[in-house]
Each structure stands twice: as structure tokens, then as C-alpha cells.
């Protein structure tokens, strides 16, 4: 049995490898651009889930007891496909086909259970409702699986998020976990400039959720939040405070990198930064 510290160390390394792979994907996308910032802000979240928390069987992708993951902020694929590659669902070389014609690695996820892509997403505000349906099915069948839904903070502008939020606590779905990637930006600018989501944690508490606030790039905090014993009969919301474009100096908190083309020289600079980070550990 690995210690907590060992696991956290491994997930930290996994996150760094994912960032390099995400960088390769962004370069491979070329002129098609990629949703750079919002992919890089969720990497520790998806790494922790796929690397240490979720149960699945890569040889039996439709195993009925597997934990389910829904990328409600569907544009976060750089942080999703790289996690699936780390754990063996997606061959690493396939990441080079990202956003290429007829590739299964589309700019927003398209359901492909064999490759570990559980649902189709891309239109914001829909994933949590689907997660409720999956969680209800688990309750009906006395299955022990959990449903993890990853949302963006900008996504919380959508009214349908709050329809779902209201329903999840009404239905007492303690097998449902929503993670809100709070990177403080959306397409058009900062949340506060475009449409403030205010105190997200307080909002989810008031909708009847058991809420945890963590540093979205701190594996230890994420790991502990996912492993925490939760309040019975309440769904869990983890507000993950993150940095859009995390790990690449020129992209961090720079909303020009919401959806942008990565040039070869920018790629080299970013790779250099990530390699230095890797060497430190």
C-alpha cells in the first residue's frame, strides 16, 4: 500500500507529464487553435481523479461499477485526453491527431467508451444534469460508483447549472461530486468583468451541497477533498481555485490564451519552462 505522500508525488509527476503532452497537442492543433488556458487549469484535477481516485478498468471500459467522469466544461480537453493517455485509454501517439480531420480526439469530447471518453460535451451547462441521471441510475441499482462532473466557473453563468444544482440536493445524491474549476476567466474576459459568479462556494452551500474549497493545483488538497468523509445524503462540490493557463508563464492569467494558436517558438519556451519544473522535482 502506497503512502499518501507517495501517491501525491506520483500524481504531481503525472500532472507534469500531462502538461508536456498538452503542449504537444496544442502544437499539433496548429492553426486550428486549442482551448489552452482552460485545459491547463484543470490538469491537477483530472490527474488526481484518474491517477488516484476513480475506479475503472481500462480492459473493460464499460465495467458497470466504474466511476464516471463528465467533462461538463467540454473545452477542457487538453486536460482530459492527456489524463486518458496517462492511464492507458488513449495511446499517447494518438494525441498528435488532436483536432485533425476525422480524429476521435475532437476539440470537445465525443462519446467513445472504448477510449474512455464517457460522454459528448461542448455546450456549456449540460453536464451536471447528465451526471444526476447517471447518479440516480447508480442509486436505483445499488451500485457503489461515483459520478464526477467537472464544470467551469464561467460555465456557472448558465441557468441550467443551477437547475441541476437544485435537483442534486433534492434527490440526495451523495454519489455525485461536482468540481468547479475556478480560474476566474471566461471567453470574453474575467468573470467579474463579464458576469460575476460571486461567492461560488456560498452559492453551492445555499443550494444544499457539501462544499470544499481547495487550491486547484495542490494535489494534496485535491486528494484529501476527494477522500474526505462527506455529509450523508448531500452531493459534494469542490471549488478548485486555479490559474488559467497554469504552468506556462506567458499564458497564466492571460485570457488571450483562452483559445489560441501556439507557435513553434512559444512551444519551445513553454517546454523549456516545463522541463525546468520537472527537473526541480
Amino acid at each position, binding site marked *: 500500500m502506497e503512502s499518501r505522500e507517495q501517491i501525491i508525488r506520483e500524481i504531481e509527476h503525472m500532472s507534469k507529464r500531462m502538461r508536456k503532452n498538452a503542449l504537444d497537442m496544442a502544437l499539433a492543433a496548429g492553426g486550428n487553435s486549442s482551448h489552452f488556458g482552460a485545459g491547463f487549469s484543470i490538469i491537477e484535477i483530472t490527474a488526481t481523479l484518474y491517477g488516484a481516485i476513480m475506479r475503472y478498468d481500462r480492459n473493460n471500459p464499460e465495467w458497470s461499477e466504474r466511476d464516471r467522469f463528465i467533462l461538463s466544461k467540454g473545452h477542457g480537453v487538453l486536460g482530459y485526453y492527456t489524463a486518458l493517455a496517462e492511464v492507458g485509454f488513449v495511446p499517447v501517439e494518438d494525441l498528435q491527431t488532436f483536432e485533425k480531420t476525422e480524429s476521435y480526439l475532437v476539440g470537445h469530447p465525443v462519446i467513445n467508451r472504448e477510449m474512455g471518453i464517457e460522454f459528448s460535451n461542448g455546450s456549456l451547462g449540460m453536464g451536471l*444534469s447528465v451526471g444526476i*441521471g*447517471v447518479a440516480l441510475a447508480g442509486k*436505483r441499482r445499488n451500485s457503489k460508483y461515483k459520478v464526477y462532473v467537472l464544470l467551469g466557473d464561467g460555465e456557472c453563468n448558465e441557468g441550467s447549472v443551477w437547475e441541476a444544482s437544485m435537483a442534486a440536493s433534492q434527490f440526495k445524491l451523495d454519489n455525485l461530486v461536482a468540481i468547479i474549476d475556478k480560474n476566474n476567466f471566461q471567453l470574453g474576459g474575467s468573470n467579474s468583468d463579464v458576469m460575476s459568479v460571486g461567492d461560488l462556494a456560498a452559492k453551492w452551500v445555499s443550494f444544499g451541497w457539501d462544499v470544499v474549497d481547495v487550491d486547484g493545483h495542490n494535489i494534496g488538497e485535491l486528494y484529501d477533498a476527494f477522500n474526505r468523509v462527506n455529509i450523508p445524503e448531500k452531493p459534494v462540490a469542490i471549488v478548485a481555485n486555479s490559474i488559467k493557463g497554469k504552468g506556462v508563464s506567458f499564458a497564466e492569467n492571460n485570457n488571450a490564451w483562452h483559445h489560441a494558436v501556439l507557435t513553434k517558438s512559444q512551444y519551445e519556451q513553454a517546454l523549456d519552462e516545463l522541463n525546468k519544473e520537472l527537473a526541480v522535482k
Partner: protein
Amino acid sequence: MKINEASIKMWSRIGSRAAFGMAVLELGNTIDDFMVLTADVSTSAGLERFKKTFPDKFLDVGIAEQNMMGIAAGLASEGIKVITTTFAPFQTMRCCEQIRVNLGYMSQNVCMVGLASGIVLGTLGYTHCCIEDVAIMRSIPGITVISPADCGETVKATFAAINHGESVYIRLTGGANNPIVYKDDYDFEIGKAITLRQGSDITIIAVGTMVYESLKAVEILDDRGISASVVNMHTLKPLDTLVIEKACELSKLIVTVEEHSIIGGLGSAVAEYKATLRKSPPQIFIGLPDKFGKAGEYRYLLEKYGLTANQIADRIMNQYERF
């Protein structure tokens, strides 16, 4: 569940919504992995008995149609047969994109039932009427669209839809004391239109409540020396193109009749296919005009827009002579 003269009469009396409620009661008895979802309209959907009999198969999501469709897709993705139901405009338009992404794009199969479509709720105003649902639903890939001709067909369509290979939208029209088209049981197959009456001059293709009106119109036309076929095109998508081809071969005039906007519904669907044929007789589009009219009693509105048997017959007479 017995489908015979007595049950058909009873369903007709209670109307399409209550008949639908009887059908789901039967499905609750026969399917374990089955759920009916509603958005705070269980009474209007005829689901009160279902709710009491199968509390674990019933889910009310409150007044939140978008959430209902997402939950339905999530349940369906786990292999549960799901019916969703609310009033037609809310079932199709409020949550249109959830239907498109979750059911169409992601291929999760859900049976959606749009209650009180058309203009039966005319006194409540056009927020509660629905004249656009067929146009919208049939433009989404992966959605089958059915408009039953009477209450018996509502029951049969519900049974067929639950085992269909893709999502289905069932459009319920008409109120209580819904006229009977089929007096006894018959074969219903999704995508297979039913020719109810064979005639030699023209073919009337109708859906929903307008099937009965068309049958009556044909009796009037008979007296005036025009012999008409009547086709119940209960499935609007996929369209039974063979029946249209045959009608175009044999008829001098095609007439489509629907309690739906003349834009995008049955008339448009038939015309889209008909236009590709070598022999393509003229078509009369009988339906609701492209406008939000004044509120009013159902019967009054049907007459105002020419959707009664007499008016359908008159319009066909006039145009037939001109052609």
C-alpha cells in the same frame, strides 16, 4: 393490455394525455428498468396513478425542462428506458439544445412526449399552444417524430417508441372526446404510413387530429364526385417515402393536412421528398398560418384556420377544379 373497441372508446373519452397515462402504467408493469420523468406536470400528463403505483419509477424534476432532458440522457446512458413528458412547447423548445446534444449527438435514447400540442390549449394563449414542434424536432439528426391520429394510436405509439432504436418525439394533439380513427386494434409500425382509404383522384396525407377530419372531408368530396385516398402519416420522420411515391404516381393532387404551422411540418416534409420525384403533382398545404393568432376556444380556432372537415373539403374542391 387489451386493445379493443371498449378500451379504444374509453381512451377516446379521456383524451390523449390520459390515454398516454394508461399506456405508461402498462409499461411500468412490464419493464423493470423504466422511468417516467416530468417537469411538474404529473397531473396534466395523466401520471397520477403511475406516480402512486410506481414511486421508484417516477421522477418529478420541478419546473426545469433542461435539467429533465439531461437527467433523462444520464439515465438512458445507464440502460434505463426513459419517457419524459411536459407540455409540447416546453418539451421541445425550452430544452431544445439538450435534446440536440444529449439525445441526438450523443445517441442516448429517450422517448419524449409533448402534451397538448397544436392549438387545443388555445384559451391559454400561444405560450401553451405549439405549432413549431414538428419543424424543430425533425431537423435534429437522430430523432424520430410521431404524431398519433387518435388515442388508441397514442397508446400504440408509446409502446412502439419505448423499444425503438433512437429517441422519439411523440406529439399529442386534441383534447378529451378525441375522435376515433381506429375502432379496433391494427398493426402500427414506426415509419410505416397507413392508407386508410383508397381513392383515384387525389391523395390526402394527414397527421394527428387532422386524420379524422380528413376522413370526414373525403366523404363530402365523394358526394361531389372527387375520389380521394387518405394516408395517416403518423411518423413524420422518417417519412414513408414509398407511400408518397405511390400517391404521386396515382394522384392528380396531393393534399397535406396538419394542426401545425405550414412551415416545417408534414406539408414541408412531404414537399421536400415530392420535389425529387419525376412525377410530382401540385400540393395543397393545409395547416396553421405562420403567425401567433388571438387566443380562443379550440373548436373556434380550428374553424378560423380552416381545419374542419367541411372547410378542408371546400378548399380541396376549389383548388382541384383550378388545377
